[in-house]
């Protein structure tokens, strides 16, 4: 099979880090803070590598949008088994305001340029929790989408996707080319092995600018304020049920 898979990987603040809001409330502190690949993107890369090991896919291209540092994230994907990388250079103010709409335009443009048959993304990023890029990419390309995938199989040129939905599991069959977004239980990502990390050094990462793809990265959204969640207040104990009802009415809850 000559399928080419595009996997989007995002560099986010490491999940173990304690997040702090910037003093000017325009965002969170990212300087000097440990970053790593979005966990759902790791799952996406792992799925692509498994497809390649099953010989259902020929080439895996890891894509990331951002400044120089995102190359680390692409290298991690290469160390896990991706064949080559594409670094879409976005920096400074543009990077701060980069969101799902712009990324999905970039992914769609790359999918056409690279003649991809499949795009696998994480279902959402752990920094903004948007859960939009996969869906928007599919819409821009007019491709079917299998989101929240917990199982992915190729059956006779079509994709069978088991999706995690509120009511349980939903199984759908979609045609290729398609966009799939990975959910937590899709797989358990492998550790990169030392030999693979060294091999990754030799794999190529191409540099591309959004303008080269005909994409305008200006944001249509403006962040007004970022605040920490409100501190949890102490509770109040009441003596009787009447008191409880009274208090609930007082605070307008009922």
């Amino acid at each position, binding site marked *: 099979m000559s399928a080419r898979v595009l996997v989007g990987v995002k560099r986010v603040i490491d999940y173990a880090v304690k997040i702090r809001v910037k003093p000017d409330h325009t965002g969170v502190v990212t300087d000097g803070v440990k970053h790593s690949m979005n966990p759902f993107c790791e799952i996406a890369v*792992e799925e692509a590598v498994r497809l390649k090991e099953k010989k259902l896919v020929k080439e895996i291209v890891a894509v990331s949008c951002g400044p120089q540092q995102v190359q680390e994230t692409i290298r991690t994907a290469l160390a896990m088994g991706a064949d080559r990388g594409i670094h879409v250079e976005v920096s400074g103010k543009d990077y701060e305001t980069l969101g799902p709409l712009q990324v999905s335009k970039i992914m769609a443009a790359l999918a056409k340029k690279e003649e991809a048959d499949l795009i696998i993304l994480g279902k959402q990023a752990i920094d903004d929790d948007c859960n939009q890029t996969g869906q928007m990419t599919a819409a821009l390309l007019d491709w079917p989408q299998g989101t929240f995938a917990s199982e992915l199989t190729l059956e006779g040129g079509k994709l069978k996707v088991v999706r995690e939905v509120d009511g349980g599991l939903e199984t759908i069959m979609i045609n290729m080319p398609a966009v799939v977004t990975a959910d937590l239980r899709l797989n358990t990502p492998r550790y990169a092995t030392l030999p693979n*990390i060294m091999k990754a050094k030799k794999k190529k990462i191409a540099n591309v600018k959004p303008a080269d793809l005909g994409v305008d990265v200006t944001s249509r959204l403006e962040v007004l304020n970022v605040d920490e969640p409100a501190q949890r207040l102490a509770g109040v104990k009441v003596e009787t049920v009447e008191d409880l009802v009274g208090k609930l009415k007082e605070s307008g809850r009922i």
Partner: protein
Amino acid sequence: MAAAMALVRGVRLGTYNIGRSHSLIFNSVQRRGISACIDPSIGLSDEQKEFQKVAFDFAANEMAPHMAEWDQKEIFPVDAMKKAAQLGFGGIYVNPDVGGSGLSRLDTSIIFEALSTGCVSTTAYISIHNMCAWMIDTFGNKEQREKYCPDLCSMQKFASYCLTEPGSGSDAASLSTSAKLQGDHYILNGTKAFISGGGDTDVYVVMCRTGVKGPKGISCLVVEKETPGLSFGKKEKKVGWNSQPTRAVIFEDCAVPVTNRLGAEGEGFSIAMKGLNGGRINIASCSLGAAHASVLLARDHMCVRKQFGETLSNSQFLQFKLAEMATKLVASRLLVRHAALALQDGRPDAVSLCSMAKLFATDECFSICNQALQIHGGYGYLKDYAVQQYVRDIRVHQILEGTNEVMRMIIARSLLSES
């Protein structure tokens, strides 16, 4: 957001590769080294950061959750180590042509430092195993390398380093295990003491006397487990390092083929010492990992524990203590990495530097872990808290692979021999 990753997941080995378990580590800290000034990834190349990341991830997911159990039940975690070997940790600085990862001494130090945060004892054993694999790789002939190294690198087989005897510890060159040549075999008689992995490992790298007294009469033989005449003493009960068994290794008319000798007769002591140079950096690196984890544990405890109406982190005395611990940690780490570079570059000062690094880092890191235990107060003494295991486990690093007193001898000799 982090809650998504907090789901307990089973480890799925699958047919492809080693997957990790994203398990929530309950009462122990995420040992990822987030604190900026003691961050162990500062100054590393991108590739080294990748190695370190894998090692940290492996330590946090595959070792840390079991560290206490391995210690209490004295389990030799063969499965976890084999998983580590599949990632390339079985022969980190062994040549790739026999299954090793071919990395540098600095890369190795970084990896062991990270792994040690997950379990010092197990990482220390893995480092001893690596040392033996390297000795066979470097001093063995083609047949020996091809016979032993691939299995050691994949941890199909485990190795032990046998130098110390009941009568010769620091005075290693006075060892008395004899190897008398009879036809095409050496007949070994004697006892080795305190052998890490002894009895549970498959390949024993044994320094024994084939010739005259002193270092020049010592040769290095590879002895396989089922060889007749090879037996083991009782499993020792130790203060720490409990995830590796320690036994005496006993040779009674044990016949070992001459083809199992590494290098020429009389080269054994030199081979042993060269192995130990790297071994000392590895052990020092294990101490670094424990100290790093302990500093984070102490810091986190100080932010949570309140006395006299405020958190311990408001106490200037404890702030200063923490600062001293952090400073000692970074200083130790720099010396260890400096020594690693000297060794891999073959510099003439490498042996002294390795001794300095082992001396300084093991002493300072023990002091750091001990101080971290003190900061925990009474809780630090309970086995529910990890800090006491770090203290117990790294205490022995000041003793083995050359006592810190012997390290001073080596350094003094190098200073005085130049005059």
